[in-house]
């Protein structure tokens, strides 16, 4: 008779770039239940908002997570601007959207590499990260840093990216697209990759709805849920935007959605660069501008991993009283635990990776 054993997974594990601990209850190689244990990356940075002035906190918000770092700064800054009633120039909004899409490309490439590593496709891992360097080069040139960009400020952007630079970005993206297509076509049609991914980690449309999943994880289960369809900031000016969905509901589907999103992001960037207005980039609000007492606001943006929520409440001083965020991975963890039920132990790393968990966002 099969015996139940508990297999500890993490927090230090070769396929995990980040610490999360799972107790896998296994019976003969089959996972019956996965019990997550979190808190390894908890720093408590939301509380720092009480001791920092609202302009300074952007830099802490950016350090919630290094992969979608730009997005967190963006989300916090937008929420605070809404609280203060600041209008920011269109150009700044466009630049933010362009950088957000660049972050998405870089995040998806990073993820694709890690996935390839998880099923032992080392050369693909290296190729994806090589391509990712193109985006990091763009960041280095335009923002002066590779990971933590510190270009968003409350009230706009810290500095402009001029038109010739934007054009150069588009050219670089063309090269990237060509190389990327080569890699993705090879990978998605490879029979060994397919046999590793197809049918693994199935989450049905109903389950995805019930567990309120977000981002590519939900899109791969057929849910059309993308914050960019709400047309926030510059996204409202796009001629046409439709979220990419797939009905495969398994690891392969999630892979497909993310791969296609990279092309979509490239197109969005090109469209925005062609349309970008020239009305300044905004500036820091003066010292007299303070968040109203009791005022509150929130924004929702689409991060590489899905919908992210930012909330701020003022108390009439230069500090913000409460900052709260809900990140996509915290929504998706429940789905991950569901997807892990009944799978084979060998598939566990794959499933965890196709959810693309970002633990430091989740635990902050």
């Amino acid at each position, binding site marked *: 008779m099969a015996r139940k054993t508990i297999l500890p997974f993490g*927090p230090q594990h070769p396929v995990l770039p980040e610490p999360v601990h799972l107790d896998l209850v296994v019976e003969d190689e089959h996972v019956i239940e996965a019990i997550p244990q979190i808190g390894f990356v908890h720093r408590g940075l939301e509380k720092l908002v009480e001791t920092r002035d609202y302009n300074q906190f952007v830099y*802490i918000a950016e350090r919630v*997570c290094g992969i979608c770092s730009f997005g967190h700064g963006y989300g916090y800054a937008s929420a605070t601007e809404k609280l203060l009633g600041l209008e920011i120039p269109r150009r700044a909004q466009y630049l933010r959207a362009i950088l957000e899409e660049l972050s998405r490309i870089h995040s998806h490439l990073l993820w694709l590499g890690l996935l390839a590593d998880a099923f032992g496709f080392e050369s693909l891992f290296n190729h994806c*990260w090589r391509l990712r360097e193109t985006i990091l080069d763009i960041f280095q040139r335009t923002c002066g840093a590779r990971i933590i960009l510190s270009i968003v400020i409350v009230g706009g952007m810290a500095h402009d990216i001029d038109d010739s630079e934007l054009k150069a970005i588009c050219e670089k993206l063309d090269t990237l697209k060509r190389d990327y297509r080569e890699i993705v076509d090879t990978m998605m049609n490879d029979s060994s990759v397919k046999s590793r991914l197809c049918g693994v980690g199935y989450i049905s449309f109903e389950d995805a709805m019930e567990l309120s999943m977000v981002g590519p994880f939900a899109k791969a289960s057929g849910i059309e849920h993308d914050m960019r369809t709400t047309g926030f900031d510059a996204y409202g000016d796009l001629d046409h935007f439709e979220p990419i969905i797939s009905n495969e509901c398994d690891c392969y589907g999630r892979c497909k959605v993310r791969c296609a999103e990279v092309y979509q992001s490239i197109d969005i960037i090109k469209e925005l660069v062609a349309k970008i207005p020239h009305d300044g980039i905004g500036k820091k609000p003066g010292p007299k501008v303070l968040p109203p007492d009791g005022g509150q606001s929130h924004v929702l943006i689409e991060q590489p991993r899905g919908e992210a929520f930012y909330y701020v409440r003022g108390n009439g001083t230069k500090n913000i009283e409460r900052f709260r965020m809900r990140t996509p991975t915290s929504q998706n963890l429940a789905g991950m635990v569901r997807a892990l039920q009944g799978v084979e132990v060998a598939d566990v790393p794959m499933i965890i990776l196709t959810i693309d968990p970002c633990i430091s966002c989740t635990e902050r």
Partner: protein
Amino acid sequence: MGYSSKSPWLIHYDGSSCNGCDIEVLDSMMPLYDIERFGIINTGNPKHADIFLVTGSVNHQNINVVKEIYDQMLEPKVVVACGICACTGGVFRDCYNVIGGVDKAIPVDVYAPGCAVRPETIIDAVLKAVDILDEKAKKMKAEKGRG
């Protein structure tokens, strides 16, 4: 970096970092920076590793994990703190759950600053660690000879 008698292997653990430094650590092993050209290999097993790269500060939940990994590594071993969080706690120094830099948990040999730490810095730090590793090995040998 002088002549080293062996190819050091490294292990990486993410303390409570924001991921920024982690991806840079991984990046330094990728084709562009390619730390492997110095004979260095990334491993997941503490028992095989000579150099321990830690990113991020230690907090109440992970301090034991960091100590555990360090204890499982065989002598001689070197610890590199990658990123300002790992060195001192960085921007998160004042957070209620952060104890401080990695040196609050285990002895650190090389500090690599930066937020996020750049791959060039990591390479420099690791090469420095290789020298320290050699020194430690020599010392151990000498002690063994005496004993």
